[in-house]
């Protein structure tokens, strides 16, 4: 592995790890606050039980998210000093606000986790809600910084250096809005469905069914709403990408040749050498429609982009397909949720489906993140700086990669094991509760 690939692998792996914990750490507190609210309103102890159950998850995932986030703030410099040297001052604004929001979150989580008997109930509830809101806001800031890498703004690039820096313009770049909406909805739906799936599993095992049904309802009110909104947010994102990064759009659709009535492929593996799509089912004109709301619009293909500026087309396309497919399935089951909620009965097969869906949202997050990051290559700052010019001069990055690979895999295993123990404990507790 050469240094660049190793550095990219390290960053990719660290972010891929962090994004899961960040999503959970962002959304779980919201679910927890909702349950807590219902307890305080209805005085039904089942909701208190749920709040305390979810609180443990919040504590564990928040801690892993916090430390893996610390690693990332260092890795920006450890792996990409050439990038940070210029980008730090330009995109510092979202990072400093993110720091503030995250700080507030860290204080609030201490208050919430340990403050049960020390505060008035509603004050205590507010601290829990603050965890959720500040976590959510800090997520928005971080993604806004990523948006800048895709749609750089707020500076003039003259002779390899940034001049006339305007941090406000940089933060509100052309990509921040669609990226943050898309990501925050993805977090809501992935975590909402995962939590619902776990409780569906417990329900099907016949443990504390009333409690688990309540949990499913809370989780899916968030998860299903987000899943239904997501296709619209995705469409908005697609249009912005068509405008800002034609090469990325072309790659994610495997669209090689410029032309009108561009087809949208379902499935398929793009072949960069022959510049064709293999085994894909074309829907004529649909790509033109997605990009420009017009089936006859001309969509720029990869032939408009110099070959050395292509991202890895197959990876981007396949990841995109996975993300969209999962998104569609989840949107559909989101609609079903509201139908069943209205009818006040959840069929057995739907609950089984929810169990199957536990990992789906997370897979979609990873796939979508690969689409945006790999799709931006070879640029680290789109059109301004190449990733290879930003990488650290320190040799042997491959060992850095192995180190974090082992560390994070271990951490995954331990978190998974803890989770298993948590479920065990819950099952044991409700052994006799039908």
């Amino acid at each position, binding site marked *: 592995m050469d240094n660049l690939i190793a550095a990219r692998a390290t960053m990719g792996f660290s972010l891929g790890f962090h994004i899961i914990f960040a999503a959970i750490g962002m959304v779980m507190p919201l679910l927890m606050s909702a349950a807590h609210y219902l307890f305080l309103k209805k005085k039904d102890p089942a909701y208190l039980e749920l709040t305390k159950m979810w609180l443990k998850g919040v504590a564990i995932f928040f801690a892993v998210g916090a430390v893996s986030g610390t690693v990332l703030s260092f890795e920006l410099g450890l792996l990409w000093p050439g990038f940070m040297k210029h980008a730090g001052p330009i995109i*510092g604004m979202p990072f400093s606000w993110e720091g503030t929001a995250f700080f507030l979150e860290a204080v609030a989580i201490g208050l919430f986790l340990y403050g049960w*008997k020390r505060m008035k109930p509603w004050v205590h509830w507010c601290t829990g809600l603050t965890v959720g809101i500040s976590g959510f806001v800090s997520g928005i800031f971080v993604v806004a910084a990523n948006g800048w890498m895709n749609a750089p703004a707020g500076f003039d690039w003259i002779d390899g250096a940034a001049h006339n820096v305007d941090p406000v313009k940089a933060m509100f770049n052309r990509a921040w809005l669609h990226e943050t909406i898309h990501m925050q909805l993805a977090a809501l739906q992935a975590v909402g469905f995962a939590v619902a799936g776990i409780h569906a599993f417990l329900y099907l095992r016949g443990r504390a069914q009333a409690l688990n049904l309540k949990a499913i309802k809370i989780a899916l009110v968030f998860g299903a709403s987000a899943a239904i909104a997501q296709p619209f947010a995705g469409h908005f994102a697609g249009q912005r990408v068509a405008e800002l990064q034609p090469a990325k759009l072309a790659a994610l659709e495997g669209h090689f040749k410029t032309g009108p009535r561009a087809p949208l492929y379902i499935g398929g593996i793009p072949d960069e050498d022959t510049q064709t799509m293999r085994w894909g089912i074309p829907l004529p004109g649909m790509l033109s429609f997605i990009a420009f709301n017009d089936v006859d619009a001309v969509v720029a293909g990869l032939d408009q982009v110099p070959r050395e500026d292509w991202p890895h087309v197959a990876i981007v396309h396949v990841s995109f397909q996975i993300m969209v497919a999962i998104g569609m399935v989840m949107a559909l089951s989101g609609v079903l949720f509201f139908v069943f909620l209205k009818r006040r009965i959840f069929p057995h097969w739907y609950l089984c489906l929810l169990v199957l869906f536990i990992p789906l949202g997370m897979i979609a997050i990873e796939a979508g993140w690969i689409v945006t990051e790999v799709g931006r290559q070879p640029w680290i700052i789109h059109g301004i700086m190449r990733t290879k010019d930003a990488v650290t001069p320190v040799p042997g990055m491959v060992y850095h990669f192995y180190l974090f690979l082992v560390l994070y895999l271990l951490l995954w295993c331990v978190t998974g094991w803890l989770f298993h123990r948590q479920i065990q404990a819950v099952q044991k507790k409700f052994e006799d509760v039908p």
Partner: protein
Amino acid sequence: MTDIIVFFIGASLLLYVLLGGSDYGAGIIELLPAGTFREKQKHVINEAMGPVWEANHMWLILIVVILFVAFPTIFTTLMIALHLPMLALLVGIVVRGTAFTFRHYDAIQEPRSQRAYTLLFGVSSLWTSFWLGIIVASLNRGTINLEAATFWDAYIAPWWGVYPLSVGLFVASIFAFLAGVYLISETDDAALQRRFTRHAAVFNALVIVSGGLVFAASFIERESLPSRFFRTPSTIAAMALATLLFVVLWRVIPKRNALLTRVVAGGQVALILLGWWLLYAPDAVHTVQGPLNFYQEAAPHATMLQLVIALLVGSLFIFPSLFFLLRVFKSKQHPSGD
């Protein structure tokens, strides 16, 4: 503008050392044999650290963010030349935070896994504070060389030597000392209070010994520290005052006044940090090619302005909430239930 930002770096560093440092120290103390006190001690440390450790950890993140936003060249220089110690630090941070949290939130509490968490928490606390010291020592040695030809000169030499090693020991001792002092008033159990007092005394001695070692090593390895020290009267005064306060501290501790004890011990550490800061300010880092100065390396004005706004507005949120946190958990009347 730069003054305000540099002040925030200094203040964050101080708060990180005092607050985060006590958390590291608690881990180091848990490494010591505790016999029958093991469980009780663990409980006290969980209660004392649990609500605050995430917030205390934030000061470090704040320093990193301020550095890369406002002083990008200083940030990237450190991340290149000190890549290896930074990695060691990160591994420690990851293991420490997760081990501590997992210990508390493991749904099934049984002795074997609890012992493993405690061991990991302790070892990584010691490891992390040690590397923190090495990094701090390497900032101003003038050995950082971004134009070096060999791997050794570029990535090992900047932090290699007995001097950085002894600063590592010094920092770990300070952290453990702070934790000892801090924990005394976190428990009502007289026997445990005596234990923490004894720990504080032992680490107090270690602070003095390792401080002497830092000085001796810097003489032997011809570091810039001694000559700067004797040229900087304010540093000499700060260090002298910090040493004198040890006498005050050990007169205050038997009085069992939590606030006063903490103020004195915290004041000592603040003085040590201030003395060190005055040695080099406003130079942040010394390289073979010359010093990197906060004022010359500052980001463009627009960035600095936005950062100051973020820091000041952020303070309006953070300081009241931190105050609330302390008020809620440091009033003794209720046990925390979770």
